């Protein structure tokens, strides 16, 4: 991670826009990350979402493909 990564724009999308995005693409074309706690994930999550609780993100960034768009909720 370089200093420039801190200046990359992060946009907030509506649920509807994300639904369209996911519908139009195959699961191998994006990273879909659930950053909530495991109990919350267990109760309900977007199909295909990978659980990485927010506290674990810094140590698990390598699990994300940096060449693909990442959706976080």
């Amino acid at each position: 991670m370089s200093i420039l990564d801190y200046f990359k724009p992060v946009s907030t999308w509506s649920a509807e826009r994300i639904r369209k995005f996911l519908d139009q693409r195959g699961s191998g074309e994006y990273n879909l990350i659930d950053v909530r706690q495991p109990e919350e994930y267990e109760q309900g999550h977007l199909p295909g979402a990978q659980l990485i609780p927010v506290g674990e993100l810094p140590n698990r960034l390598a699990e994300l493909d940096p060449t693909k768009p990442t959706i976080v909720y």
Partner: protein
Amino acid sequence: MKGGIRAWEGLVAEGIPEAGMAYFSPATRPQEMIALAWLLEDGTCKFYESIANMMEDQEARGFFHDLKRSEENHKTTLWKMCEEISGRTPSSEFPATVISGKPAGDVMEGGMVVSEALKWSKGKTLKEILELSISLETNSYDLYLKMEQKAEDRNSKQIFKTLSDEEKKHLERLTSLFLKTL
């Protein structure tokens, strides 16, 4: 995502991140994964067929028969996939020739035992049965998406991609009928 999960009005899967994955853990080769997936489709076929026969409403009966036929097609797809990967036609004993031990009882998509799902379904309304089916298919869709991400070889990735695409189509049909019951 603006509003987080609360803003999401679509389908959600339930369970821990590894839910359902253990089912495929005995598979070490793509053919074994296919055989295990085939058994799930077979279980789901039996479930939809029994549900169709329980329905008094002709439209609902026809709908579940269609779903059953669709699961039959999945089985054929998997059978062909096994043929392509292994380079020879699977024997009539498939999938027993590919996997040594069959899971106890008929298990369907979503990991539920068919007999338990049928026992639960007795006396339930069409709406309740559709809710169960949507829930099982959503969990199945979630599982196949995650298996696709986890798979390391191209063949396995393709198997799970095919399965998840099919589950998505099923979910669209199920939710469409569900909306009609509201």
